[in-house]
């Protein structure tokens, strides 16, 4: 039974190995590349299901395998892998959604010349993500976490010749890294306080002894939450996620909808014991922060989504909003509800993104929803599956997975003792979700515009169908009547209780969704039939609409404040370095130079000058004397004669 736990490391290792072998392959081996990636993913899926089945044997199953990574000094750093319901459920979701997306990519990327590199990156991502899920050490989790970030950097910037893609990739990497630095500090603090980073270690892991952390738990939890904020696109670090839509659509589906962005939520769920240290009525300061960040994110992103025209950006903001919802759920104590929503969201959001990808593919890379319309009949499978996804996301009750999980979350928020504001704001969020999804679907599929569109090939529609089935079928394990997944995650046994199927909350959420969809139809019903009409909201509230369409100008605000500050700082330091510090060095240097010049002058003008003058005097006399020696013997003779004469005269004169 434990053989699967012993070999758990293979689940991330196999896709990683597949990735490496694809990278070492020749570029032109496209079939082998995609084949390797998909086989790797299938093996990982198989093992994940095996692992999942293992966890079913006992409620609250938990097995781990720890080992020393390396020894420093006489201490060793231990890491390990863990298998528990949380990990197992995530494993299955990630591998299943991943497989669908891999298959979809074969069709979507078929014309790309870097086809095999794309699959290498996808496999790499998948491996890293699976590593995050099964890590039994915050350090190991962080390692895979960063690798996930790297993979998302590579995938967002996959179309390297597009400057916007490169900028988006950079933004994603740096923005998430800001959060990761917080997480890193949290890890250091936790390591310092608890002396281990293993989650579970037979009572010695940091989660099992979280109660001993005491007052520092709040700080550690908040720092860890920073990482989750970055990765899961929570306010204020959400800005990278919509830009990340520059990547190929399967990437958006895999990374920015189903798996990677969920890693933040997963992280909070994983280290939940640290968040809930010292809880009174399930409320701790750190969890309160989580709730409010989640509320702000959820509502803000839902509002922005209403005013976007790029099909993928709408979905991106929807993702941000749903992640906020999950955070709220975790924050108010509904861990299972949050994770359930995470899983359900993984399926239907991947479905929506792939559907959007299919639309984009069919329309030859057109992403503006104002230029779409009337695709209902031309892309039938895409439309039907997309509609399933839309209803699941909006939370249409009874048959769609999203409805049950949202109801759970609303239920959890209503129970939160501290405040009811999150509950009502989340209800507003549900209405908005239904509204913008209705808006999108009307824009894209309804109306009778004639477009040159074609249905996507089977390799692309099959994953859509599988995911749509998942999105619907998944609701079976979510209903309050048989809350199997809920209990499975909490490690309790489950019974069927049909009476709980219809709860007041279900009716509330039904009403909310109806309001949302109704409003959507009311606002946008004419858009479909008229060509090139302005958005009704834009005509009604132009200022507000611009505010939302420009993403509340948050990018601009950041660019003008934090980024500008850092850039200025870097320039100032550069200037300091060149001018001040180097200036001091040069000043000291020139002091030496000046003293050198000074002593040189004393030497030259003072001491040397006397010697020089004497020698030059002697030389001048010599030169003068030599002038007399003309070499003319007659002159000499004349001189002798004159001399004799002079002597004679002298003699005569003297007497």
């Amino acid at each position: 039974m434990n053989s699967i736990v012993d070999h758990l490391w293979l689940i991330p290792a196999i896709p990683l190995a597949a990735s490496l072998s694809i990278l070492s392959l020749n570029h032109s081996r496209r079939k082998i590349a995609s084949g390797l990636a998909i086989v790797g993913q299938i093996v990982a899926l198989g093992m994940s299901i095996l692992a999942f089945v293992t966890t079913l044997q006992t409620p609250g199953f938990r097995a781990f395998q720890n080992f020393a990574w390396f020894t420093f000094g006489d201490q060793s750093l231990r890491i390990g892998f863990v298998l528990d319901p949380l990990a197992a459920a995530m494993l299955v979701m990630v591998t299943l959604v991943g497989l669908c997306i891999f298959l979809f990519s074969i069709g979507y990327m078929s014309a790309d010349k870097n086809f095999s590199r794309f699959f290498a990156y996808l496999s790499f991502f998948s491996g890293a993500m699976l590593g995050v899920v099964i890590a039994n050490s915050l350090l190991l989790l962080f390692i895979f976490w960063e690798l996930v970030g790297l993979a998302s950097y590579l995938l967002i910037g996959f179309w390297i010749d597009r400057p916007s893609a490169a900028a988006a990739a950079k933004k994603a990497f740096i923005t998430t890294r800001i959060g990761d630095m917080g997480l890193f500090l949290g890890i250091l603090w936790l390591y310092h306080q608890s002396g281990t980073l293993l989650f579970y270690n037979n009572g010695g892991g940091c989660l099992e002894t979280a109660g001993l952390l005491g007052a520092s738990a709040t700080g550690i939890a908040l720092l860890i939450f920073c990482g989750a904020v970055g990765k899961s696109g929570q306010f204020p670090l959400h800005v990278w996620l919509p830009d990340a839509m520059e990547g190929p659509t399967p990437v958006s589906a895999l990374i920015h909808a189903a798996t990677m962005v969920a890693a933040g939520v997963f992280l909070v769920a994983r280290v939940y014991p640290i968040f809930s240290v010292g809880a009174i009525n399930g409320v701790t300061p750190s969890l309160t922060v989580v709730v409010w960040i989640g509320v702000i994110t959820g509502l803000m992103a839902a509002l922005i989504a209403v005013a976007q025209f790029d099909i993928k950006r709408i979905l991106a903001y929807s993702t941000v909003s749903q992640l906020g919802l999950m955070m709220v759920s975790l924050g108010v104590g509904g861990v299972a509800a949050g994770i359930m929503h995470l899983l359900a969201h993984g399926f239907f959001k991947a479905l929506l993104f792939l559907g959007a990808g299919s639309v984009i593919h069919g329309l030859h890379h057109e992403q503006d929803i104002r230029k779409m319309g009337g695709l209902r009949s031309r892309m039938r499978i895409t439309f039907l599956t997309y509609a399933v996804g839309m209803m699941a996301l909006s939370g249409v009750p009874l048959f769609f997975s999203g409805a049950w999980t949202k109801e759970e979350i609303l239920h959890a928020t209503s129970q939160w003792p501290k405040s009811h504001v999150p509950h009502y704001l989340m209800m507003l969020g549900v209405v908005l979700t239904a509204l913008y999804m209705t808006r999108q679907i009307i824009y894209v599929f309804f109306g009778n515009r004639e477009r040159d569109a074609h249905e996507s090939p089977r390799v692309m529609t099959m994953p859509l169908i599988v995911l749509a089935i998942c999105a619907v079928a998944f609701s079976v394990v979510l209903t309050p009547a048989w809350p199997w997944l809920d209990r499975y995650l909490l490690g309790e046994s489950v019974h069927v209780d049909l009476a709980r199927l219809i709860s007041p909350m279900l009716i509330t959420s039904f009403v909310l969704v109806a309001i949302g969809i109704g409003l959507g139809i009311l606002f946008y019903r004419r858009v479909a039939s008229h060509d090139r009409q302005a958005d009704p909201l834009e005509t009604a509230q132009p200022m507000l609409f611009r505010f939302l369409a420009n993403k509340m100008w948050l990018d601009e605000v950041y660019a003008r404040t934090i980024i500008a500050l850092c850039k200025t700082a870097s320039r100032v330091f550069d200037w300091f370095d060149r001018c001040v510090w180097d200036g001091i060095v040069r000043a000291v240097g020139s002091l030496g130079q000046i003293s050198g010049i000074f002593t040189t002058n004393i030497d030259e003008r003072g001491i040397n000058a006397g010697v020089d003058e004497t020698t030059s005097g002697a030389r001048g006399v010599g030169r003068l004397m030599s002038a007399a020696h003309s070499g003319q013997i007659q002159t000499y003779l004349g001189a002798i004669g004159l001399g004799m004469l002079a002597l004679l005269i002298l003699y005569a004169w003297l007497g």
Partner: protein
Amino acid sequence: MITALILIPLIGAFVVSAGRFRYARFIALIFNSLAAVCAFLIWQKFDTSAAGLQLVERHVWIPSIGAEYLVGVDGLSLLLVLLTTILFPFALLAQKIERGACALMLVMQAALYGTFTAQNFVLWFLFYEMSLVPAFLLIKIYGGDKRDRAAVKFFIYTFLGSVAMLLGFLGIYFARSTFDFAQLGDLAKSGPLLSGKIAWLVFAGIFLGLAVKVPLFPFHTWLPDAYETAPTGVSMVLTGALSKMGVYGFIRLLLPLFPNEIKILGPWLLALAVISILVGSLVAWAQTDLKRMVAYLSINHLGYCMLGLFAVSTRSTSSLIDMHAALSGVFVQIFNHGITAAALFYFVGLLEQRRGARGLADFSGLMQRAPLLCGWMSVAMFSSLGLPGLNGFIGEFLIFKGSFAVAASFTAVAVLGLLFTAVTFMRAMQSLFSGPLANSCNAIIDLSRDETFVIVPVTLLMFAIGLAPQFLFNIFNTTVVHMARLFA
């Protein structure tokens, strides 16, 4: 054995400069590999479970001033010897290199081996200064633009530091009449080496000498100029090995000999290290010249080393695990920075050879022309920015782990350095690799087979340290335990 290690490159230098060989680099590489064999044998003979010096060779040299010929290795020395052994062939292969430069490189290699193994101050100082001369000549003769200025600045600056250090050590010698590191360490353990103002003066002198060499902010301004101007291979050695002499000096001299002074100055020293980290990364962000950028990041990375060291030695309250973590982290970081920064300089050199320029704006869309070059270069960059799975992360994690316990706030600020490093590299990658292919980059060719052979082993080493670093830790674990006991 160690004497042979030091002599082999020296003999090589004579052979290369005396003979009129056409393949000077080839001859130099032969001597490099001989030295490598020697270093490998030392590694084999080295008993990793024993603390203290091993393979000691001791001869009378100048007894009247207490100078002995005393060489030996412990874990730290061995690590640095191995690093030097790896770096020199790498640096020689980085570019076409003239006969004279080959000879000078070999002299420098010998000097480095000497510095890392000498255990007596006079001998150590001899080798320490011996490395300076070839470095100066290499910059002065074979450097790029502004080489005269940069070489003179480099020489005078570091030489001034050395003079200060020499004076400091003379002060110690007159008080304690020994130059032996081990004896001095024992003396310092039993009581302060010097007292009163003299102690502070001596401390300041030695500190200055080492801080210039590392370099620590604000004694770093020679570095960007020197690294920028020096030829690729020389930059690689300067950053990879020469800067380590400073860190080595801190570990070997300053920390054991002046524990009290360091404790008193603790917060200030930590602040200097943190400022080095931040300034290094921030200024690197503002650079447009790739070589200068890498040079500033060197300051940043060595700042992490200094942070770890100062954290270990400033508080006596820190627990053993934190000391072990910080010291191990520093050792790993020394090694990592050696190979990673050298690799970065190597790649910048390749780009410069191909394009004739090395500004950020001179390149665009390289990924389309040279995917292999970009791929391997990205690995080096990611290693440098501390991506887990590559070597940089291990060292930085351990350093931060160790320093967090002692100086949480300093560590928290220092972590910002990781962020700015990431920003710097992301910016570089964006403008070099992606975007439309610039016309000027059309002629750029991908890695040749020879270049791939050079870079693959180094990159594999980065991965090896990042994934399974135990083989590296084995070298110095006992030394770490021993040192931690010394500092505690």
